[in-house]
């Protein structure tokens, strides 16, 4: 199967053809895929070289003239390295862009920690007004990229990954998708971790909600789910563990509830290897998830596990 990133340049190239507002800004990474689009739109496909502060600052300048910049590189160099530019050049200037990252958490384990940014969503959470899409399948990535570009002058982050679920779900750029309904807990699976969550909870009486748009969080859908399934909530996120714990707490602040935040650990593994090995090391494979979900729900009042 192709990857989300394989879809990125073709989709955005079509948007460049269709919409004269769209511009693409790159810092070498990903430029080959835009070769044809660059030939067709030399003034709207811009490669600034390996200069990530300029990447973000120039995108803000484009936005100030009325264009809709789509900015792409690895998450480490898109969100972390030029973070103050992301904060000021979009937020403080009152403008927006679509930031499209790749390889955020451990998509390239052999590349090591310099090319990992599991804290990207948590960092954006310190800022106001960002929409965050985390697709779990290439088809969803295509849909969410279109939503992101069409979102006026909003600030939107799209987190592409080589990790993918087996099948695409009908995502709409805003709402949680109910994948399964149960009565003893709610598990929110974010993006490419849905399959692992479904495998881990196959025989548990839990509601599984699928999230591909995590900011803003679909609060009404979460609250509805807790009416039948109770207020024990497990978050399974493909980035830093606990990133959305506060958002879930806020959504349920008027009722007693418990939240378990699962995700990528802070500790640097200093290991190479494969995506599967890193998922297991962070407890994000089906087995690791099951163990911790059992521990959490088993400890909860009234949580019943049907085996």
């Amino acid at each position, binding site marked *: 199967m192709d990857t989300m990133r394989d879809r990125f340049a073709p989709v955005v190239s079509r948007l460049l053809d269709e919409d004269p507002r769209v511009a693409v800004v790159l810092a070498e990474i990903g430029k080959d895929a835009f070769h044809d689009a660059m030939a067709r739109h030399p003034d709207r496909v811009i490669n600034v070289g390996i200069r990530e502060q*300029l990447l973000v*600052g*120039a995108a*803000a300048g484009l*936005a100030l003239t009325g264009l809709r910049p789509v900015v792409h590189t690895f998450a480490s160099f898109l969100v972390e390295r030029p973070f103050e530019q992301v904060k000021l050049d979009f937020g403080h*200037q009152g403008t927006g862009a679509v930031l499209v990252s790749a390889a955020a958490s451990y998509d390239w384990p052999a590349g090591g920690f310099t090319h990992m940014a599991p804290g990207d969503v948590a960092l954006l959470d310190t800022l106001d007004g960002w929409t965050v899409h985390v697709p779990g399948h290439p088809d969803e990535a295509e849909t969410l990229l279109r939503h992101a570009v069409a979102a006026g002058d909003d600030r939107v982050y799209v987190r592409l990954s080589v990790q993918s679920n087996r099948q695409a779900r009908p995502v709409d750029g805003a709402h949680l998708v109910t994948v399964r309904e149960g009565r003893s807990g709610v598990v929110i699976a974010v993006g490419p971790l849905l399959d692992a969550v479904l495998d881990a909870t196959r025989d548990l009486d839990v509601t599984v909600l699928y999230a591909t748009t995590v900011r803003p969080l679909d609060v009404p859908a979460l609250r509805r789910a807790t009416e039948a399934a109770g207020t024990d909530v497990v978050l399974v996120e493909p980035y830093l563990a606990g990133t959305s714990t506060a958002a879930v707490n806020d959504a349920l602040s008027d009722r007693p509830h418990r939240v378990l935040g699962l995700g990528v650990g802070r500790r640097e593994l200093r290991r190479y290897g494969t995506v599967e090995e890193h998922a297991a090391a962070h407890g994000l494979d089906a087995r690791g998830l099951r163990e911790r979900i059992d521990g959490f729900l088993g400890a909860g009042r009234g949580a019943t596990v049907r085996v």
Partner: protein
Amino acid sequence: MTITADDHRTHGYGDLARLMGLMTGDEKHGPAATSTLDVLWVLYDRVLRIAPERTADPERDRFLLSKGHGPMAYYAVLAAKGFLPVEWLPGFGTYDSPLGHHPDRVLVPGAEIGSGSLGHGLPIAVGTALGLKAQGLADPAVWVLIGDAELDEGSNHEAIAFAGPAALDRLHTVVVDNASASHARPGGIAARFEAAGWSAVTVDGRDHAALYDAFTAPHPGRPHAVVARVEPKDA
């Protein structure tokens, strides 16, 4: 805000000290506040094709104040040219005032960017020049003002190194050099721009005729830098 008669009279260069005095409470100003004064005046009085009624015109020139520290001269010039009411000046820095110690484009009429954190204006100016070009707006000039110490920020060098080879000939940078960088070589500022393929000229930052000539010098196919030397900050 009430617009009073004062806003309708014509202000000249000679009024700027009084306008700045409305912000500082006296007519003595720190060097950071005044190092930019003559550059700003010549640009707004004779070079930039902008006006209070044109702040949303796509064809207007863009002036980006990147060195947002000590913005009293900037506010004074904006007030003198009718972009903001003179009545706003005495409130400088107060809770209800749109005029902060660093300018905010969302609050200040005529301000193209908010600044304060150094090294943001030139990369944004590069994007502005690119964005105008991509929309076929070949006429508007983009100007950015930075300080000599602000050039320490590496983000500027990303922008300088890109803009020369990209031949952004509608892009202009004026560096107000009051020798405030701790580590600098004489002549180094213009040389850095020239090495990246810019047109560059160094002039007396208090000489209005020299500034005007430098600002309007032709620079076909290249972005243009003007280094405006003023009295050293610590002198």
